[in-house]
């Protein structure tokens, strides 16, 4: 019998090591695994490198992990968004590193990691400051820049429905980076609103196959980061 479920979000992140690279799903508030992020704050791992499209909103979830001083480096495409207050202050104070990656390159670097492809050539960023110092090569008369895969030690994912094998379905645009982060991480940890028996999800509708998932935790009434931001909540 295969059963990837664990009892709590605390159990799921308990073995996170200092210096780990953590891929955090979500685009803005949609798909942000708030309960897993708060569990990681409680767990206490330090010097983390975090991959996310943004750099946290308000003072909850990813922003509160950053505010807790546990994040040494952010890898993201757009760290400057409305409601992003924690990251800009730390960045200007020189207390956190930033690697800015074009959004599509960020996605493809994660996908490549999951697919076992160590690097690829892309037209994105050619001739711009973000290609400075990177290897380029011409194909069919056009210049492309080489980008490396982006592997993670753990991925924190929010799914709508999971089965005990780790097959996942997401909710609308909360899907965003989650499927490719599931692929890119050594250990993929999923909080799911509903957990069902194998066979309950139509195989035709599975978005992330369970092979990319290691741990599943039932979080039946997940906090939506959007609601927390509206209520101006902060964590802890």
């Amino acid at each position, binding site marked *: 019998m295969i059963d990837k479920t664990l009892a709590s979000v605390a159990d799921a992140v308990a073995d996170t090591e200092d210096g780990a690279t953590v891929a955090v799903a979500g685009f803005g508030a949609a798909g942000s695994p708030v309960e897993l992020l708060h569990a990681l704050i409680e767990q206490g791992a330090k010097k983390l490198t975090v991959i996310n499209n943004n750099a946290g909103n308000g003072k909850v979830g990813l922003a509160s992990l950053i505010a807790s001083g546990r994040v040494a480096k952010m890898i993201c495409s757009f760290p400057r968004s409305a409601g992003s207050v924690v990251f800009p202050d730390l960045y200007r104070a020189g207390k956190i590193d930033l690697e800015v990656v074009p959004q599509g390159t960020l996605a493809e670097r994660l996908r490549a990691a999951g697919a076992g492809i160590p690097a690829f050539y892309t037209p994105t960023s050619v001739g711009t400051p973000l290609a400075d110092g990177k290897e380029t090569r011409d194909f069919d008369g056009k210049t492309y820049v080489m980008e490396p895969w982006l592997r993670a030690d753990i991925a924190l994912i929010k799914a709508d429905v999971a089965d005990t094998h780790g097959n996942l379905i997401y*909710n609308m645009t909360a899907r*965003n980076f*989650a499927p490719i982060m599931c692929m890119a991480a050594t250990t993929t940890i999923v909080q799911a609103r509903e957990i069902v028996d194998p066979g309950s999800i139509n195989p035709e509708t599975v978005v992330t196959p369970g092979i990319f998932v290691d741990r599943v935790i039932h979080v039946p009434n997940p906090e939506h980061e959007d609601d927390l931001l509206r209520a101006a909540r902060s964590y802890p």
Partner: protein
Amino acid sequence: MSWTPDEMAARAALDIPNGAYVNLGIGMPERVADFVPEGRTFVYHSENGLLGMGPEPAETERDPDLINAGKKPVSLNPGASFFHHADSFAMIRGGHIDYCVLGAMQVAQNGDLANWSTGAEDAIPAVGGAMDLVAGVKTIYIVTRHTTKDGEPKLVETCTYPLTGLGVVKRIYTDLAVVAVLENGFKLVETAPGVAADEVRKKTAAPLA
């Protein structure tokens, strides 16, 4: 009489054909969706994994898991689909999106675009999907005021701000004119009602044929 932002967006919409797959940048370009010419249907792509994006719904029908790339609530048009970020940017980079309308800080006469950073020392760099869009979408249109708030031309010989992409812009829709970017530089296509070609040239920092 120069064009208003709505009129600029409407003018750009006229140059997008029926059935096009379209990505609209945040801000003024988003208004293009309000001025789709009679008889045409565009399919809107949003970078965060949505094709067939519809307009902002009523307050009571919003879902925080249904948002656009600007993180605003949106709705679904019939025929919509969801997909993950790598597929979304495969659509962009792979040349499957037909038109993209973006804002600009500067456009050079060779089509170079600067629209993501002023390069200021204290600025926090943030690029989002702009570089992917200009590298991959078949046709890039720009909707922007002809000059900055301080009256500096945005259509220039060479961009001084950090570039987003090289030679990518096809047309620019400003409050004063429609300007095409051709192999030999800027060409004036049309002026706003009551705006003289000389005024457009005076406010353009590059030759305008």
